[in-house]
């Protein structure tokens, strides 16, 4: 119940007070790029179709997951079911031990971030190397990703130059080409050293057992194909029913994520080729709880494009670290409390419910409504609502139940306002307003009084 959303998190990181302004202009450009990339397609029709396909998927998820398992295994892969986060880690460690892995290369995977895979592998003496450039940078810096699609968005090239100088021992440079080349050379060695490659999943097609992995850098492809063992890590919600559904998502994902019409690589993985061992760990970790509640179900439609972060006025100002979990922005504010329960009850309150996120969402998730609903769940569960403002609201709501108590409240408010004005003091909750904004004064004659007089 503490108000610990650190709105200044991004400015505090590396002592950069200008960070929110930079983040805002960067993300404004991202949103403009996304809008520009939509002009050649029927955007509204496609996002409605994507929403509907996901709705159907969630209504039939049990059957589709089983269908996927059969198809995937028929083509030589193995499916491992992980009802909890701990099960997923156990499976992963079992696979690593079975194949004698001391080094693992990782393609970008948000669920691996959610499950803290790298920490668990490290504890077991296994080095996990991020191969997505942004993830690699934050890993070297000892940080978490701050954005779903651009993990190092909060860092400038000067920051990266300093990090590479310190962690890789190269001469300082802020030239992006030189920095990228340094990363590329080192990562090449790691792909070759690794016994296991772990990647995420963008879409898992139930009909054929195909897994689609979409990326720009090629590190996902290398993580999957170079080491002898490949592990897919996916949440249960990544399923789509048929191959014919895939193009709908391919059309909207890149446009929303990076403003591209299509990303550089669209890998279709189909089981395991001879000599290769492929696993797919399918993770529940409370997702079935979201599925069970019709008011939270739509958050499972998320295709992790990051567009809601880009447009969110709160994310732009606070940055990703303020959300305290793997997922930031509006989707983070919704699923972090949904998936983790107790923690993060505050997140849904750090919003004006403006709805810009839903406008951007390529699968039309009802994010602002879910934020309102999660507030209700937090209050119902006793995790929120104890603060002064909340109690004030409760008092007001009760006073609104009949006209007489309404009128008494208005009288009280007028007296309090007049007194406050005379002595120049207001309770802290109004102080939070009055420090930077002029306070409104109650009108001498209310509308009700005016109406009564004229009747």
């Amino acid at each position, binding site marked *: 119940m503490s*108000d610990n959303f650190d*709105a*200044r998190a991004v400015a505090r990181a590396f002592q950069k007070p200008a960070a*929110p302004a930079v983040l805002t202009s960067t993300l404004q450009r991202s949103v403009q790029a996304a809008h520009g990339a939509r002009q050649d397609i029927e955007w509204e029709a496609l996002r409605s179709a994507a929403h509907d396909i996901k709705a159907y998927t969630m209504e039939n998820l049990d059957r589709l997951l089983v269908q996927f398992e059969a198809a995937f295994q028929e083509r030589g892969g193995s499916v491992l079911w992980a009802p909890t986060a701990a099960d997923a880690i156990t499976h992963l460690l079992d696979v690593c031990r079975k194949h004698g892995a001391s080094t693992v290369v990782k393609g970008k995977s948000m669920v691996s971030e959610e499950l803290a895979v790298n920490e668990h592998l490290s504890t077991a003496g296994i080095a996990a190397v991020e191969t997505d450039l942004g993830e690699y940078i934050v890993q070297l810096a000892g940080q978490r990703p701050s954005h779903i699609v651009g993990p190092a968005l909060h860092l400038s090239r000067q920051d990266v130059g300093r990090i590479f100088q310190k962690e890789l021992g190269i001469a300082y440079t802020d030239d992006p080409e030189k920095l990228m080349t340094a990363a590329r050379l080192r990562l090449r060695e790691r792909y070759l050293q690794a016994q296991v490659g772990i990647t995420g999943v963008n879409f898992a097609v139930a009909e054929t057992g195909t897994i689609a992995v979409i990326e720009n850098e090629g590190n996902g492809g290398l993580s999957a194909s170079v080491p002898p063992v490949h592990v897919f890590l996916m949440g249960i919600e990544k399923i789509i029913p048929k191959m014919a559904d895939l193009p709908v998502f391919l059309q909207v994902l890149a446009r929303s994520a990076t403003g591209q019409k299509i990303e550089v690589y669209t890998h279709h993985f189909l089981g395991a080729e001879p000599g290769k061992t492929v696993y797919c760990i399918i993770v529940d970790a409370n997702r079935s709880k979201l599925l069970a509640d019709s008011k939270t179900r739509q958050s499972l439609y998320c295709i992790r494009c990051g567009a809601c972060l880009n447009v969110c*006025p709160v994310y732009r*100002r*606070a940055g990703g670290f303020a959300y305290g979990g793997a997922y930031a922005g509006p989707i983070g504010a919704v699923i972090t409390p949904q998936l983790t329960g107790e923690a993060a009850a505050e997140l849904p*309150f*750090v*919003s*004006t*419910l*403006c*709805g*810009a996120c*839903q406008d951007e969402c390529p699968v039309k998730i009802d994010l*602002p*409504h879910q934020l*309102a609903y999660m*507030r*209700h*769940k*937090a*209050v*119902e569960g006793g995790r*929120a*609502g104890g*603060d002064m*403002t*909340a109690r004030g*609201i*409760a008092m*007001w*709501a*009760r006073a*609104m*139940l009949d*006209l007489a108590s*309404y009128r008494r409240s*208005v009288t009280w*408010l007028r007296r309090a306002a007049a007194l406050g004005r005379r002595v120049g003091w207001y309770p802290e*909750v*109004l102080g*939070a*307003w009055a*420090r*930077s*904004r*002029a*306070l*409104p004064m*109650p*009108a001498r*004659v*209310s*509308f*009700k009084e*005016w*109406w*009564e007089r004229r009747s």
Partner: protein
Amino acid sequence: MAATFPETTRYRTGEHVALFLPCYCDVLFPQVGQALVALFSRLGVPLDYPMEQTCCGQPAFNAGRWDEAAKLAARFAQVFAQWKWIVVPSGSCGAMARRFYPYMDASSAGALVGNRVYDLATFLTGVLGQTDVGARFPGRVTYHDGCHGRRELGASGAAIALLKAVRDLEYAELPRIDECCGFGGTFAVKYPELSVSMGDAKADAIEQTGAQVVTSGDSSCLLHLEGLMRKQRPKVSVRFKHLAEILAST
């Protein structure tokens, strides 16, 4: 039990319309209600004001206190039961009744009556079918699009069309009109840094338009913007008027 009406969305001349005035307008901005009374009188539409009304319950809903919000929804349904048409000069109170009463409980009386609620702009253009309401308001005016009115009720087009039809009014579009002003109810006092930062961005946009007047379908947004500009930018001469006040003006 709320009265039910046969399925029709066409307004017939002489049908009574109920004014649903946001609680904060009653207390802080009674002139908004007065403007609506004047406007509807000029348009020849009988406007009633059910005195029993108090609050739509949105603060409780936004605070996650749905039990209390549901009680206020039920009360709302009782107070407004006999009216087929309900007009509210607020996108956010309008959205509460029209969208969130059913979201909380689709089969409630609140949901049923909430469906008859229209924000002012949508009522004038969509129900009465009028874009020119015979108003005159000289000056350069910019419009702030409140988020609920824009996204939950789709009222932006109607509001801007109404403004453009006002005689002698010079409409100046607000840059980045889709961005939230940062009020958000209790958000304004719980996260004041974020709230003020968002308001500042709006204030920058307002200054860019060179407008003499800022209007909106929501006094709550205007309250926040006016408070901010009066305190932080006292030299900027700009007035804040609800859409109803502009449309009532002759």
